[in-house]
């Protein structure tokens, strides 16, 4: 039962990263792919109808997490208090920027929200990567199952949420989501804007590949156990193959001539490959960490894992009975939503 809920939490957070990830990514590359105010309106029009639903995956993941593993949720959220507060504030700025940009027809108003959107999305992508880095590296969970971590590693030997390793993962997240977002914009737009998005996406993918190699090497140093676990778990072996193969597929689909003429199927293929890359990396991390939710840097005995922090079996069984139909309904809504907004974003339809 704990394994099922571990999978539920991991896959819902992965769904959030893939879906809201392209919203963040569109923000990171906002000013690079869209040169004029009306082009930026098209970026906003592309994510406008879906970003709110994408963010609901985070809200729902949070609910499922606290339900299934209350202690791990409580320890992680309170232990990383300041990084979490920043995420919350940045999410406010990001959402407000998207929703209010089209409210007033004034270049200054729009320029202000465009910049807010770009900055908030970029920092959010970085902080999300840092959070992932902390989950991999571990945090100083003590024998009572709690910890506190400063924002930066300090002079007094205090552990910090941001150190060289987690900053690298944060940077990787920014670049990967930039590539993901640019690929999304390339899929949803036409003409010069699509060509520019393709160019940005190609550069971001190459940089992402280099950073991913560096991050993998650093991860092997920070937490060698992950790679051992991968060796023992053949059912995970498809994931590294996908993680290596998908950027290649994305880059091939994003050849510069893709923008001219038959852009649609290729851009979609690139976007799906991009989504597969983000999902495979996260699921691979979760799969190798299992059953640990949050490793302790003090002692493996203090790791917060699925067995030790799970809710009562009866409650979990009840929850699963509710989760099934709720998930089916949610997927139905999403398929319907993405179908209803299929096709390219028309110029100037961006007043969302």
């Amino acid at each position, binding site marked *: 039962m704990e394994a099922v809920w571990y999978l539920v939490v991991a896959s819902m957070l992965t769904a959030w990263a893939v879906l809201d990830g392209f919203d963040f990514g569109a923000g990171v590359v906002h000013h690079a792919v869209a040169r004029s105010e009306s082009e930026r309106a098209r970026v906003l029009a592309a994510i406008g109808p879906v970003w709110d639903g994408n963010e609901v995956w985070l809200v729902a993941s949070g*609910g499922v997490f606290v339900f299934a593993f209350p202690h791990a949720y409580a320890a992680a959220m309170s232990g990383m208090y300041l990084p979490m*507060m920043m995420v919350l504030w940045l999410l406010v700025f990001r959402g407000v920027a998207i929703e209010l940009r089209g409210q007033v027809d004034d270049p200054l108003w729009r320029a202000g929200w465009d910049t807010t959107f770009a900055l908030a999305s970029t920092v959010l992508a970085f902080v999300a990567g840092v959070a992932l880095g902390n989950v991999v590296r571990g945090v100083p969970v003590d024998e009572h199952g709690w910890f506190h971590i400063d924002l930066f590693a300090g002079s007094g030997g205090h552990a910090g949420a941001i150190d060289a390793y987690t900053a690298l993962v944060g940077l990787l997240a920014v670049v990967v989501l930039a590539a993901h977002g640019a690929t999304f914009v390339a899929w949803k737009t036409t003409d010069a804007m699509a060509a520019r998005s393709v160019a940005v996406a190609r550069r971001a993918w190459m940089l992402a590949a280099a950073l991913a190699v560096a991050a993998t090497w650093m991860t092997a140093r920070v937490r060698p156990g992950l790679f051992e676990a991968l060796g023992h778990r053949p059912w995970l072996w498809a994931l590294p193959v996908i993680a290596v193969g998908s950027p290649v597929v994305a880059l091939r689909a994003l050849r510069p001539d893709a923008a001219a003429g038959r852009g649609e199927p290729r851009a979609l293929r690139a976007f799906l490959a991009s989504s597969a890359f983000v999902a495979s990396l996260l699921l691979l991390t979760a799969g190798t960490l299992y059953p640990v939710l949050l490793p302790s840097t003090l002692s493996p005995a203090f790791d917060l894992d699925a067995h030790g922090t799970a809710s009562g079996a009866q409650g979990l069984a009840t929850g699963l009975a509710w989760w099934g139909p709720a998930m089916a309904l949610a997927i139905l809504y999403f398929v319907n939503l993405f179908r209803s907004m299929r096709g390219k974003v028309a110029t100037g339809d961006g007043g969302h």
Partner: protein
Amino acid sequence: MNALLWHRLQFAFTITFHYLFPQLTMGLALLIVAFKLLALRTRDARYGDLSRFWARIFGINFALGVVTGIPLEFQFGTNWARFSDATGGIIGLTLALEGMFAFFAESAFLGLFLFGEKKLSPRAHLGAAAMVLVGSWLSGYFIVVTNAFMQHPVGYAVESTGRLALVDARAYLFNAWAFWEYAHVMSAAVITGAFVVAAVSAYWLLARKHEDHARLSLRVAVVVGLLACVAQLFPTGDRQGKLVAEHQRPALAAMEGKFESSDHAELALVGQPNVDERRLENPVEVPSALSFLAYGSFGATVTGLNDVPREAWPDNVELLYYAYHVMVGLGTLLTGAMAASAALLWRGRLFRPAARPMLWALMLAFPFPYIATTAGWMTAELGRQPWVVYGLMRTAQATSEAVAAGNVVFSALGFMGLYLLLGILFLFLVARQIARGPAPSPPPGAAAASPPQPVAEGHA
């Protein structure tokens, strides 16, 4: 103590500010569906204009509701870690269900509702509006169930670790407390929606703008508002009060400023509690009324705070007393205003010059449902103290021990600054929409679109 105070202040501030928005969206969603139904039935295009105008106000409110709502769920973990740890296996169920059943539905249909009128048939567009209504009301239910568990825990077992486990999901989801609390909260949301629609309509009438539209919307607002006001007092308020009287006796005593236990207990209409001397100063009282309202019998005994151990008292008796009296007092005045407007409307006099004072009253009344609702939530949450889960877990034992007071002061101040900014933006944008009015216009998808901007390349 210092950290506890700031944890409480931050959560109280962020949830109070947040709830300014959903109370309007939940109430307004009902009125928008009403306008759309009337548009379909009467084929009067002005109802369509009204539903589009209020959809624009709804959109701004919804956006602010979303961005201010997310911090609340995560603050359960960041600020109330021991509470989340102990009760997550129960309250997490409704937090997850809210996301999955309500928010996914809302987000999927909101875009269709706000921007899809041109693409959809009138009936399909009404369906999208109805789904937004269902989603937002469902979301309200899951949150009220979560709160009802904190007020009146049911369906749980205490594990050996001290954590609470869910053993009876049906009892938890259909808590009797949740039923009446939900009815009371939702009818309050409809009152807020009705008063806001009435205030804007009254303003248009007094300013002689959009008068045709204003007469139609005022009529709908007054009818809906009066029904909701009546439901607010009876049965929902009455039943909610009886639940408090039955299960939270110290809260009832503090709400009423009652220190001495007695039968034929008096109801204090006004008065100032003096907690040090344990008496109510300058009381204006109705004999035996409290016994009747609380327990249905004039002779019933009401327990005063003197007979409650001090450690079981709500920790802010004065504020609880005033929050409750403000809620009831304003609720009564608002009901009176809606009843008077309805009477004038019934006799065909609401739109005559002699009724202008009534329109003035309606135009100026819109802040009061917000204040009454906030005071009502303060009554519920201060009355629950000193418990975070009534009778099971104290608020002082619910905080995050790992978080130093300095961090909480920092984040509380940050939230205040951020929300001040949001409040200013909100007022600015809503005022613009009200000034623009419901003038016949293309559907909002086109209205909100950027005009062609051939020279926009120069802006960055």
